[in-house]
Every structure is written in C-alpha cells, then in structure tokens.
C-alpha cells in the first residue's frame, strides 16, 4: 500500500522460484523432526509447570517482601512461558505431529481469558492467512488503531496511543474481545445472534475461571497473605500482558513492514503468499533467552512463513530465510527489542494524527515572469 512496492523488482517467475525455495526449507525441517524436538517441548512444559507450582507456593508467604518479589517474578515468567513458547505454538499445531493428545492443538487450553478455540480461529485462520491485509487481518491495529497512512484519519484516532497503552495492560482481555469481534458484534441485531452469544458465553466462563483462580482461590489459600498474593497475581498478569503486547507489536508494526490492500490478494499464488508474509513481518534480534521468552516470535518472519514448524527450529530456519531475503534483494526488518518497540509506538503516535500534507509545489512566479 506504500507508494513504492519493495518487491517491484521481482518477476512473477522469481516469486514462484522463491516459493519453491521456501518449500524446500520447510520440507527439510519436517523430514528432520523427531525425538529431540519432542523432548524439547516436553521439557519446556514440565519446566513451566514446576515454575508455576513453586512460584504459587512461594506466594503463599507473600506477606514477606522477598517472597513476594520472588513469587511474582516466577509467576510472571511462568505465565509468559505458558502463553508464548507453549500456548501460542501448540495452538498453531506445531506439535500435532507427535500425536500426543495432551500436547495437541485440538485439546490445549492456555492461561489466558480467550478460550483456545476462539483464538485459534481469529489468529491461525484470519491473521495468518490474511496477514497485513487491511480489512481482513484484524491484528492490524486490532480494529481500534490506524496503522497505515492510506487509512482514513478520524478524530477518534487521536486517542490511539492511550488505547494502545490500555490494551497493553489488559492485553488478554483485548484479545478476547478481538476474538469475539466485539466492536462489530455489539450492534443490537448482531448481539442476538445465537452463534455470537454462545461464543460470548464461553469467554465469560473462561474469564470467570481465570479470575476466580488468580484473584480469589489463590489469595484465599494464602490466608494472611491474601492481599499480597492478590497484588502479586495482578502484577504477574500485568507483566505478562505488557510483555506479550510488546512482542506482538514488534511482529507487524515497526517501520519498514508493509500492509496490503484487499484486492491485492485476489488469486494470490503460493509464492506471492510467501512474499506477503516476508514483507509483512518483522523480527527481534537478541539472545537465546530473548527468543525463548518471546515464544520464538522474535523469529516472526520465519513463523509467518512456516506457522506450523516447531518453534525450536525457527533459529536455524532464520539463517536460510535471511539468505533468501538477500538473494531476492528484500528488506529483512529486524532489530533489538527496545528499538522495535520504539519504532512500533512511534508509528502509533504518528498515525494518531492526520497525514502531513505533502508539499505542493507553488509555481515559481519569478520564473514565470522571466519566461514571459
């Protein structure tokens, strides 16, 4: 949608060749999936559960400040692990090949107020199929923000830095509302739609369970540490929400990432679909720990090309993908987390205001006179 198409130099044949090269990378990983990968996800799941158990245990004594700090930090990390490296990736079907019914996209439920099933539809199907297509991919601005110059500005957008901040703090609720397409469905007629009501009910049930666990049961179990445990859980949820919101913003919002028009994807070939994923996503550079804590969404480009490959393989895939970017002279958008977060927020602020008027050339009167 930007004035200059960064892939304009590629011919149709080149784009299909690119697609075949990416397919080859995918096939190689699939052929090599095995015991090590299975051991990896089992280890991560087991570590997450142990960390959560221990942290919740420590929080029983959160009336003592060191216990509060330790427990809150542990619980925050456990929640991030649950949502990012485990939940997001299991729900993508990345581990379905193991045929373990307990680690499967159809059975997994995560520590999040949006029920897995609804999120799978809005994320896997809508966002990953129609990545960055305005009007089709609701992830772009979550329906509350203006993310591209070509979108019409409305005074409502003045508030978008604030909406985005609130969304970051209560991100899981934002996602639940987004999965329900709440904005669209709150119209009187749609509210009565039985299908919508059933989904809203499911979200209500999940919220009730999550809130009951975090803000009633665990604080009650803590007895005299009731209030401090409550505060600890709230903090852990806040940390998890802000963290995942930041990571996710880095995936498609930073400068350099392209968005697409609805009509541009009509009759899209596999190669063109791949190309759109490449230009519509951005990575985060950093250490192994960084990749782990982002659920390997720091390899957002690779994840968007191959959403169903096991997350522990994205790092090795990234080397090959990056070489393809160079070969086809495309921009591989990446940078450290602070830079990418800043870039994304900068865009949110910039687009909250109407577009700057392009400078219109005023006719040079003197020249005209001379000419005359």
């Amino acid at each position, binding site marked *: 949608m930007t004035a200059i198409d960064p892939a304009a130099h590629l011919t149709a044949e080149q784009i299909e060749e690119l697609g075949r090269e990416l397919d080859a990378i995918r096939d190689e990983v699939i052929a090599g999936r095995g015991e090590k990968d*299975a051991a990896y996800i089992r280890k991560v799941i087991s570590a997450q559960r142990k960390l959560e158990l221990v942290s919740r245990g420590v929080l029983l004594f959160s009336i003592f400040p060191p216990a509060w700090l330790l427990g809150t930090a542990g619980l925050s990390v456990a929640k991030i692990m649950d949502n990012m490296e485990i939940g997001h990736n299991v729900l993508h079907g990345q581990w379905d090949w193991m*045929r373990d019914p307990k680690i499967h996209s159809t059975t997994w439920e995560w520590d999040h107020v949006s029920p897995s099933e609804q999120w799978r539809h809005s994320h896997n199907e809508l966002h990953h199929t129609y990545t960055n297509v305005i009007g089709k991919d609701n992830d772009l601005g979550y329906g509350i923000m203006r993310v591209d110059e070509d979108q019409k500005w409305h005074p409502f957008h003045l508030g978008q830095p604030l909406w985005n901040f609130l969304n970051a703090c209560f991100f899981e609720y934002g996602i639940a509302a987004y999965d329900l397409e709440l904005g669209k469905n709150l119209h009187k007629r749609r509210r009565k739609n039985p299908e919508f009501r059933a989904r809203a009910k499911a979200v209500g049930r999940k919220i009730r369970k999550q809130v009951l666990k975090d803000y009633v049961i665990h604080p009650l179990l803590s007895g005299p540490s009731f209030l401090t445990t409550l505060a600890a859980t709230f903090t852990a949820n806040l940390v998890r929400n802000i963290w995942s919101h930041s990571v996710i913003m880095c995936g498609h919002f930073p400068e350099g990432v392209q968005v697409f028009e609805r009509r541009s994807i009509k009759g899209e070939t596999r190669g063109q679909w791949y190309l759109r994923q490449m230009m519509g996503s951005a990575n985060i550079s950093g250490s192994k720990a960084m990749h782990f804590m982002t659920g390997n969404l720091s390899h957002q480009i690779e994840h968007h090309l191959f959403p169903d490959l096991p997350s522990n393989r994205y790092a090795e895939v990234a080397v090959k993908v990056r070489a393809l970017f160079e070969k086809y002279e495309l921009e591989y958008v990446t940078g450290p987390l602070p830079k990418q977060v800043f870039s994304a927020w900068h865009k949110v602020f910039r687009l909250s205001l109407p577009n700057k008027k392009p400078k219109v050339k005023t006719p040079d009167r003197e020249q005209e006179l001379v000419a005359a």
Partner: protein
Amino acid sequence: MTSAALRSRAWKLLEMVTTPLLPSDYLDLVSPLRAGADLRGRIEAVHPETGDAATIVIRPGRGWRGHTAGQYVRIGVDVDGVRLWRAYSITSPTNRQDGRVTITVKAIPDGKVSNHLVRRAKPGMLIQLNQPTGDFVLPQAKPAKVLYLTAGSGITPVMGMLRDIEFDDVVMVHCAPQPQDVIFRNELHDLVADKKLRLTEVHTDTDGMLDIARLDELVPDWAERETWACGPAGLLDAAEKHWADHGVQERLHTERFRPSIVVAGDGGEVTFSATGKTVDADGATPLLDIGEEAGVLMPSGCRMGICFGCVTPLKAGAVRDLRTGEITAAEPGVLIQTCVSAAAGPCDIER
C-alpha cells in the same frame, strides 16, 4: 456429607486451583503411574529372546485391571517423537507375584515400533497402555486335550497360556525358519523335559511351510483336541478350512495379528463414517473439497494447511499430504488436515 461427595468437592476445588490445566497435569509430573492417572507403564527390563525378538518387562500403572491368558494389550510408544500404537500379546502368567507384565516383541522388517522396542527400549521408559483385551483365551472348564498350533511370533499369546495353566495333555506344533528363531525355545524344551508338553518344531527354511494335511501324521488325534492357533494369515486360513472340512470348526480358536500395512494408492473410495456417505476421490483433490462436495459438514479454516482448523480423525486407510507427498496411515488418535490431504487408497474420515 459422604466421603465420596467430600472427595468430589475437594477435587472440584483443586480443579479451580489448577485451571486451565487439570490437577492430573501436575500430578503426572511426579507420579505418572498413580491410581486414577491415564493408564501408562514403565519399562523395567528388556531381555533378548532371539536375534530379533525381546521380552519387555512392564510395570503397569495402578489402574491396570489385569489380563486373562492369551489376551493382548495395546501400547503407545514414542518413536522419533511420534506416538505410535501397536498391539502385543501378553506373555506373562496372570499370577505373576510382582505385578509386572511382559510382552514379547519380534522386530519385523521396517516395523517402526517393533524395532524400537527390541533395539532401543531402555529401563525407565514410559509407555502408554490400554487395558488388556481379546477373546483368544482359555475356557473356564479345562479341556482334556489341547493343541497349540503356532508360527513365528504367533507363539506369544500361547506362551501366555502355557505359563498360566498346566493341562494334562498338551501338544504344540510350532513353525519358525530355523531353530534359533524359535522364541522361548529353552523354556519350551524345559517343559518337554518335564513331560509337561509334547512339541513339534517345524523349521520352514529346511522343512518348507507346514502343510496342514501333515497334522494327521504329526498329531494323529488333532480333531479331538481343543486347538488354539496363532500365526500368519496363510496358516490360519488353511487351519480354518481344514477344521471346517472335518466338521470340527468349533474346536478351533484363532487369533490374527493384523499388521497395519496399508497399501497406499492414488485416490480411492472415501467414507465419511459419521454421515454415512461414500464417494470416490481422486489422488489430487483435498478431502475437504471432497467432503463439502458430498454435502458433509466439514470443519475448515485457511484451506492452505496453516491454521489446523480442519483437523479430523482418520479412522481407516491412508492419505497423502499434497504438499510433501507424505503418506499417513490410520491409527487410533491420528488426525489429518483435510485441506491438504488427498485419498491414498480407500479411507474413512470421521465426519
């Protein structure tokens, strides 16, 4: 309040504590074999039997209900990270004091699970278990005369019987390529030495396949015996015909191991078993399209293999992944992405 009601309340509370997981998800970390857990077993020893067969000693979880001699158990083993299920006859007697059970596995060429169990199984490994099942068992009332007719690994359920109950008059005819291929050979010969068993070994590499007509010569009173036969389909087909021809088919009990070899073709007849529809499919059209065309309500999503919104159980047959060409054969618990899978031979989709 009764103690059962109290327990159920306590469990409900525990579920609230662990939501969205279940208490068992945490308990499994420390005690996977406990009562109430999904049934699993731990491999405690692996004893080689022949060059390509081994006996696996398994400690089953607390929920194990015990078996009847001759029955089999389905076990789920993770091979290269993929959980595969196979059925194996139980070879241990029912009264084994330590509560362990054994299966005896013969590695078949290209057999993923059998080779894994025979060559790579180690003590400590966890496996998934189902309760034992099968009606290839001995009757309540002891028959006066018994014949066991077995070949290859067909001896395994019969060994479970032999070890379980002693009969007064037992004859066994067992076929194997060579003497060293006879599983449990030492134990069988010990039984023979103790006069508890009369054994005829047929070594097919030298003697050729057993001609069922030779039974008259090997076991002249075969028709009077209650017979349990287990082995390859050819042997069992011949036995069934032989017993029927002599009008004594009620004395013959057979067990067929069905090897899960699916011959993958290109397209085939697709059955949507929940809807009861059957249609012909070519080898290039996604099963999702085939189903929708036939008016079956199919779950769908991205239609390009990325969202996993269309996964559906494959109950029988085989499908081909249209992206990689990879063949997936039906096994319990196997789900396929219908939007990128085409029929590779006849198959059954649970829709």
